[in-house]
């Protein structure tokens, strides 16, 4: 079924709630536990070999969503059906994990201790290339680590061959110049290439890239993005690309999900979302994209948003964006008190395009 619609991943109602440590007085008073609702009911599908983007301000839960898919944060609820390779599925069922007839497995249904086989399929690239590589290991050892952990029964020559090939693939050539270096001897762009190489070496089908270029020099960003694009073509890799930068998103994404305070507010084709944003929040984000034309640099731009992002521990009732929503103020008469009371469902505004805003109620 999943194969039919071409989805490699189907996430449904993902919730990641971090409990807030209660004070003793609260425990005695038996107050209900409070949570930071980092991710609060997120659903999306990722098609095979596409670049699916999660965009939003910092703190909106996009990184947490990515980590949840790797079970790096505790999951509070939801499901994530993943289409895994045959050998991985076999390995999983050998460990007593229930695998569907259609070859799909629920990532959130696997105990974290039995996740290991699946980790070959889903890899992560981090934002900070300075922090994501063990400073005590050489590049060769860093790349060898995944092979060791997954115990792939390779001979020494095969391992070295693999390391060389993957280094060539990320264009760190000649490879022998790099295997014996420590991360601190490389530039930021080179390190990010090593991180990509580490993600590639297990031949995953899904790579979660968490702001992979936002800490790099602007001059290097395009190179890395281009490399990622090339790998997508050549290796058939699917990306979940997390970014706060719509300019980058426009360049690389096939589809975009805009997140706000732990929820997706708008999801659709990347070009369409950026060219014609529907949700008031998306509109604000798009309006905030830096103006490339220097003649306009002095123009005061009108970004249609107000206030600050609320605390995820204290999410506003109703539509969580309403306190900052300019459209809500403008359309007060039409919308009434609805936005303050009731959370908007997803309205399909065009094919493959959903928006969570009462303004589009008429589309349903």
């Amino acid at each position, binding site marked *: 079924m999943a194969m039919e619609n071409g989805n490699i991943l189907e996430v449904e109602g993902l919730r990641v709630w971090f409990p807030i440590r209660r004070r003793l007085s609260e425990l005695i008073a038996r107050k209900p536990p409070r949570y930071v609702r980092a991710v609060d009911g997120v659903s999306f599908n990722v098609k095979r070999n596409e670049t699916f983007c999660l965009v939003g301000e910092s703190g909106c839960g996009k990184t947490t969503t990515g*980590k949840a898919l*790797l079970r*790096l944060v505790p999951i509070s609820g939801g499901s994530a059906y993943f289409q895994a390779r045959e050998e991985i599925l076999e390995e999983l069922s050998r460990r007593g994990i229930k695998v569907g007839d259609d070859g799909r497995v629920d990532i959130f249904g696997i105990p974290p201790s039995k*996740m*290991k086989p699946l*980790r*070959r399929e889903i*890899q*992560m690239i*981090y*934002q*900070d290339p300075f*922090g*994501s*590589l*063990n*400073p*005590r290991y*050489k590049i060769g050892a860093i790349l*060898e*680590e*995944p092979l060791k*952990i*997954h115990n792939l029964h390779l*001979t*020494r*020559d095969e391992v070295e061959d693999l390391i060389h090939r993957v280094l060539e693939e990320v264009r760190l050539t000649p490879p022998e110049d790099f295997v014996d270096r420590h991360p601190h001897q490389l530039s930021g762009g080179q390190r990010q290439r090593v*991180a990509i190489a*580490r993600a590639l070496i*297990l031949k995953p089908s899904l790579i979660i890239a968490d702001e992979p270029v936002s800490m790099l020099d602007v001059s290097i960003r395009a190179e890395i993005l281009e490399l990622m694009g090339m790998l997508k073509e050549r290796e058939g890799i699917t990306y979940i690309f997390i970014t706060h930068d719509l300019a980058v998103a426009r360049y690389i994404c096939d589809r975009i999900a805009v997140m706000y305070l732990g929820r997706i507010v708008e999801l659709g084709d990347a070009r369409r979302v950026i060219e014609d944003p529907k949700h008031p929040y998306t509109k604000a984000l798009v309006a905030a994209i830096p103006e490339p034309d220097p003649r306009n640099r002095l123009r005061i731009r009108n970004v249609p948003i107000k206030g600050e992002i609320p605390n995820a521990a204290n999410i506003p009732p109703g539509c969580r964006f309403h306190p900052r929503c300019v459209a809500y103020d403008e359309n007060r008469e039409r919308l009434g008190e609805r936005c303050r009371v009731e959370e908007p469902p997803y309205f399909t505004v065009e094919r493959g395009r959903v928006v969570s805003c009462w303004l589009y109620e008429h589309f349903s």
Partner: protein
Amino acid sequence: MASRPKSSRRRFEDLRRGLANLAREFRRSKTGMTGLTILIILTFIAVFFPIIGDPEAIDNWTNLEYWQDNPKKAPPCWAASDAFRTVIITRNNTSPTGAELVTREWMTPDGRKVSSFSLLFTVEKKPPTNINVEFRVSYKKTTRILILLERPDGQVVYLTKNPFEGRGTSVKDVFGVATTKFNGTVSKQISSYVTKPKNVENFLRPWLESNGYKIGTAEISVLTKSGFDILFAKLTPNLFNQIEYLPGRYNLTIAFVSKDPDSSFEVKKIVLVGGCFGLAGSDKYGRDLLQGLLYGVKWALIIGLLASLASTLIGGVYGVVSGYAGGVVDEVMLRIAQVIYSIPVLPILILLFAIIKPSIWILIGLLVVFGWPGMAIVTRSMALQLKEETYVEAARAIGAGHFRLVFLYILPQILPYMFASIALSVPGAVIAEASLSFLGLGDPTILTWGKILNEAQNAAATINGYWWWVLLPGIMITLVGTTFILIGQALDTILNPRLKR
């Protein structure tokens, strides 16, 4: 599989280069090299003690007879230049030279055999503090003894009655053996003989009175204390308030007068006990403190290194595991560590050793038991920080297990800190042992600096001015402490680059 050694060789190569870097940086650090130099010297002393020291002295440390010829409570000779240097005379050997023994034998007209031993020695500034005599004697008839001292000023002091006039003094009065028949060894410390109240009354008093001194109760009490010194004093009017020594050649004659013509008397040993001893002085039993100080290095290093190594490793791993585990496990582990950390170690050890028999190994064990939490609490907080590092999470995402994360990703980052901490926590362990021994709760079978200090305290060394007895062990303890602090600080500066500036 044949390629396995290659990877381990590469690892080894890494380690070797890392250590080489460390060594290079360490060599540049002045404090570190100072500390290392002292440590090497100390280790040398500890290892080669059987060669450079006197193991026999340590074996006989509690055998007080072994030490009886040494000056008691004597300062080190480098600090007492005017003191008399010990001379030991045996039948065929005098060492060092400077004293002379003249032996003569003759028969008196009335058939008594006289065996006379004259000991000639020179006093330059201060006299001996005592004279120990030991004779092999054999007689079957009444034997009397004559002891007299000829002084450089011509005075002759009789320390016995004259056996040629009247009854004389019997052997029994001096050596406590039967007067009429004895075969064996006799020995006496002249000082204690001279200052016996009876002898003061009989011999010192008449001598001094003949020199015009008035002897009252006060003077008698001075004589019973320092009568031996007065034998070597200038006969100044102020004699009883301040002794001024009379330099020159003295002659101490001991003569046996026996009615037994077949009697035999020979010197076994005569010791002119000096006023100073060795490089580190002696204690109240005359024991060579230098040997104690040198020997103590070994135990200080063993106690310090073992206790700090074990507690740092245990605490380090415990802390990392606790911090890594997080949640309830961390909470429980941390609380346990904090509870132990808050126990005052010394009072507990004092209590424990009052109940159980103190042993050095139990002590080291207990120092570890109470010593690890400090390290654990620090490494826990470091692990809490490190486990959030992206590269640790990245490894988790790849599928690295707990063991791998703790021991290959987190612990190696903390290891340098632990190295420095091992060095820095050595002094604590050394001082803890010294404190316990000082309080008399140390291992009784092992000689440590703390134990020497304990004996010094029991002898009220500080009040009596036996500074060497207190100061030198104290300096040794400080030296070991300083050594490791220097090394630890140097390592700390190199391994925690943030401290460099």
